[in-house]
């Protein structure tokens, strides 16, 4: 029964997953292949006056961070493309599938508890998200020799794990929204709005950034100090689990 529910969840989400995987893989490859050009430009950029405002500070930080290959990958790939795209697909994979979609009434009339239906769907989504975090990350060390560089596999895995553990909260929030709204769009749009809102707060309130979810997702403390943000990751995982628990309670209360 569980394996068939998993199969159904796969059929429902496979295109979102495969598109996400392809997109992230392309972005990962692009990040690596872009490095030689950026490496040539960086010394020139260092000579430009950057100013003292927020933008100037950001430019200086970008230049400083990308002085070596590891810094470039973290700044261009992990912190930007990977985090943004992965978050988008976390929201998309968590959206829909519980109320109002095709086969909902049929599935709910089968002898499976709502907790199981939600648990299997959430489990399938999390497994897909884990692959979306791990596979593109592993492409970085795999492709790095093509540009004459090397990138530690362990570093790639650590960033993938940070992305998955911290960012799963966005997935869980989308699941919660999907047990409230019958269509796929409202959960997706509300969750995207929440993700963008948090991102804006972390950008504007500079003091909050080190403790924010995006700093956890991009593993900034690991990149800068080599230590994992255990407390933050545990809190994120707990928030994610709590959101899924509330989603299961909400789902149990729904009428079909």
């Amino acid at each position, binding site marked *: *029964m569980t*394996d*068939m529910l998993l*199969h*159904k969840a796969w*059929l*429902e989400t496979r295109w979102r997953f495969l598109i996400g995987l392809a997109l992230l893989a392309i972005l990962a490859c692009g990040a690596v292949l872009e490095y030689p050009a950026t490496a040539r430009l960086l010394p020139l950029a260092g000579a430009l006056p950057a100013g003292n405002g927020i933008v100037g500070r950001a430019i200086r930080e970008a230049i400083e961070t990308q002085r070596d290959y590891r810094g470039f990958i973290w700044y261009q790939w992990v912190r930007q493309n990977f985090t943004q795209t992965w978050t988008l697909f976390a929201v998309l994979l968590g959206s829909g599938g519980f109320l109002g979609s*095709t*086969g*909902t*009434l*049929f*599935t*709910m*009339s*089968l*002898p*499976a*508890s*709502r907790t199981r239906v939600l648990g299997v769907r959430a489990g399938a989504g999390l497994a897909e998200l884990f692959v979306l975090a791990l596979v593109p990350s592993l492409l970085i060390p795999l492709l790095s020799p093509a540009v004459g560089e090397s990138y530690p596999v362990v570093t790639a895995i650590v960033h993938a794990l940070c992305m998955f553990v911290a960012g799963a909260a966005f997935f869980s929030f989308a699941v919660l929204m999907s047990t409230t709204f019958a269509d796929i769009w409202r959960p997706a749009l509300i969750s995207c709005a929440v993700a963008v809102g948090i991102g804006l707060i972390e950008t504007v309130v500079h003091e909050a950034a080190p403790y924010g979810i995006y700093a956890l997702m991009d593993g900034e403390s690991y990149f800068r100090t080599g230590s994992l943000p255990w407390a933050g990751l545990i809190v994120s995982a707990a928030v994610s689990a709590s959101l899924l628990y509330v989603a299961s309670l909400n789902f*149990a*209360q729904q*009428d*079909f």
Partner: protein
Amino acid sequence: MTDPLAIETTALRKTYESIEALRGLDLRVPAGSIFGFLGKNGAGKTTTIKLLLGLARPTGGEARVLGLNAADLAANVAIRQRAAFVSEDKDLVDYMTVDEIVRFTASFFPRWRRDLEEKYRSKFDLRGGQRVKTLSRGARSKLALALALCRGAELLLLDEPTSGLDPAAAEEVLQSLVTHAAGEEQTIFFSSHQLAEVDQIADHIAIVDRGRTAIGGSLDDLRAAFRRIQVVFDGDAPDATFRTAGVQRIHRTGRILTVLASTGADAIVGEARALDPVSIDVTRVTLKEIFLEVTHD
């Protein structure tokens, strides 16, 4: 089946925001019966079936299915293990193929009947590789029915099983149901507003009107008990009342007083004679007439 009743509801109520879908439904469905659940659109038939399966929660009252409380989360999983359901719009998983949805459904039922699966696949001409969303309405209904019949369920809950089907397809579905019921020890509970099909296959009925049971029981008993008593007078019919229990409705049109009685026709005739009529005529009534009378606004 040890419980003499497959379904029993007591004062079952369901309110959706401000809409009262059920207002105290009392229902007793004998085990092994083919039970027609009749009512106009919006009478509460679909809501009742959803409450019986635990797909919606009652606002009040109780529903027991195969001896289990349908409102209890653990019990309603057990109910769905022993009962099969076909929804009114034949909701299925559209993106699966016929083979996939058969495999998917079978995985939930340890007593899945492979013999019946083969039989209905062949009888209904269901091709394994075809996507569910590409099936015609008739084929979709047949697939939904086949998926229900193969579960080895004790109870079939069918919501408008022939809605949207052409007469030939509807007849095929009904005949399949009757044949299946004859061969298996199952209770079939089906909602409908198609009186002819209820008359054709049901042995028990209930008529639900505005969320309440208007009448219910064995169809033969109802047919035997219900009478139309037409009393004709010389002048205008009097505005009469009857003391005898069983008077369902009284119509007065010009010289004619028409009484619909669910029981006690003889006693009502005796009372009518006291009104000094020209003639009294007692006739049997059809299910359609009973339905129209008890659901009359």
